[in-house]
């Protein structure tokens, strides 16, 4: 007699947004927006030489310090170079440095963390010690040291930032590995006769890789900003230019007064990119976390 659970009521309840649902397993429109921006900026940067845009190094494309307009969308800088072209070309260095460094960080840090978390004991103590030292050592000083000694080329700048990323990534990877190494499926695999190597690759890696994947995006956001920081100290790549270097050039007091757009556009590009990377990374992490919770719930 009570139709509280009748189909009518059930349908009504499900559409009732106020109560929400227990599990939201969707990435949401925000994620897709962020992803679209990332795809756009990456594609534009990759295809920069073939795009119908001005030569970023050619001076006098427009007048000096021309405000944004129809001929030069983002205006020009004090050498009369097209800021739109420069922002897209600048993305190349920023993104490559950001991506290469986080890749290095994840590869080395992730591996060290997994080894440390899986084998425990002496190996763990040694690796953990190195990680602690890396964490305690001021990152900026390390970067100054490496770039100062080895030179300001793109691979070296990327490597430097990558080294800085190793320690925090190693810690995360170790913690994730520890959590999974305790699980009984790892014991089961050993009982079946699997070698350590096989357990790490077949059982642990797929589980550690998921949180790591989300971290790639978050980490890239950090390294892009870090590259900007290095540029500010004049330690970024010598050849070519990145968003960071463009911001430095644009933030000279006189330039800033006469043409704020020179700094504004690279700042804006960096901001939107970092925001998108952070947001997408965060959503991905949550998405996969929820999947984990879903286990066992039939």
């Amino acid at each position, binding site marked *: 007699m009570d139709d509280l659970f009748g189909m009518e009521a059930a349908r009504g309840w499900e559409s009732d947004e106020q109560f929400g649902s227990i599990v939201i397993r969707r990435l949401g429109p925000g994620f897709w927006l962020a992803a679209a921006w990332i795809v756009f900026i990456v594609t534009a940067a990759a295809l920069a030489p073939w795009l119908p845009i001005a030569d970023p190094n050619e001076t006098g494309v427009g007048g000096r310090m021309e405000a944004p307009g129809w001929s030069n969308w983002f205006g020009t800088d004090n050498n009369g170079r097209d800021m739109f072209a420069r922002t897209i070309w600048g993305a190349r260095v920023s993104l490559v440095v950001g991506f290469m460094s986080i890749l290095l960080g994840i590869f080395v840090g992730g591996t060290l963390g997994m080894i440390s978390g899986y084998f425990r004991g002496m190996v763990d103590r040694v690796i953990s010690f190195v990680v602690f030292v890396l964490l305690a050592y001021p990152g900026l000083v390390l970067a100054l040291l490496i770039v100062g000694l080895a030179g300001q080329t793109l691979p070296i700048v990327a490597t430097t930032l990558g080294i800085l990323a190793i320690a925090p990534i190693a810690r995360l990877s170790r913690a994730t590995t520890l959590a999974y190494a305790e699980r009984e499926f790892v014991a089961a695999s050993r*009982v079946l006769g*699997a070698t350590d190597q096989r357990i790490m690759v077949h*059982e642990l890696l797929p589980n550690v890789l998921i949180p790591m994947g989300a971290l790639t995006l978050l980490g890239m956001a950090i390294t892009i900003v870090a590259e900007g920081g290095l540029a500010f100290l004049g330690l970024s790549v010598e050849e070519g230019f990145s968003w960071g270097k463009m911001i430095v050039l644009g933030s000279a007091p006189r330039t800033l007064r006469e043409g704020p757009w020179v700094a504004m556009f690279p700042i804006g590009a960096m901001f939107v990119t970092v925001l998108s990377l952070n947001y997408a990374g965060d959503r991905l992490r949550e998405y996969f976390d929820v999947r984990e919770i879903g*286990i066992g719930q039939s």
Partner: protein
Amino acid sequence: MAGSGTAQLRESDKMVLRVENLVMEFPAGIHQVVHAVSDISFDVQRGETLGIVGESGCGKSTTARAIVQLPKPTSGTVLLDPGTDAEIELTAKEGEELRAIRPRIQMIFQDPISSLNPRRRVRDIVAEGLSIWREEYPDVDVEAQVDEVLTAVGLDPEVAASRRPHQFSGGQCQRISIARALALNPEILICDEPVSALDVSVQAQIINILEEMKERYGLTLIFISHDLSVVRNVSDRVVVMYLGKVCEVGDSNTLFSEPAHPYTRVLLASAPEPSAVVDESESAIGDELPSPMDPPSGCRFRTRCPRTTGLCASEEPVMAKVGLDHFVACHFPGSP
């Protein structure tokens, strides 16, 4: 009890496993040691089910892990095929040699969810053993073998094999675990609390499957549980443990109908529906389990035992025969 001694070991070439004077200690802080398992011995006959029963902290799971050398015990020996020409001392094997013996002893665990890798498909999980030993079993049709064991545990390979563990209930996950263990055709299957995490209506399914598999694949089972009724039901022989020691060993029906160790009697009297062979008042003991880092001298059960005397504190009881295939480590065994 809780004593040492090896009187309960049987002289026979039918034994498939013998655990002798097994000790497992873990470091805990500075100069502290957890005495998880202290000098226990038992053996398992081919085709029999040995039940190990005791409360949390008694060392039953540690014992199970020690048999498969995960980790290696602190001291003592674990022998496969003891007393025969094929005798293998597991505790003396390392690395590749140990790995080569592993398929002979398989294990299933308590937590059906944690036992299966959430990122792998059921087919890969069940085939894992065969794919590790692919070179040793070149003739085995992996696909067919996986289908066979999945069917044996009551799952439809067509439906199950391509799914991931989170699409299954606890009972089904436990079936998958059993299938994974069986795929390598083991001789011994160690079941560590295999039904404790399952709903009561599913427990009997898993127990019945284990019994069927035992028959079908000629397995020897070591069944570990805190649940006396379940242990009695599945076991031929039972070992009762307390705080890292063995209290009582014997034929399942004998041990449960004539419990001789005070601790066994307490367990039987404490069950939600107490056994008729003991008086319910026998369940009145202290709640506090002594620390395994500083176990009591002499008999480890003496701090909670109703029969304790000075002798129990000064001298550790040794395993003694009290009946046909019934051994107990107590200075004052029998009914009160």
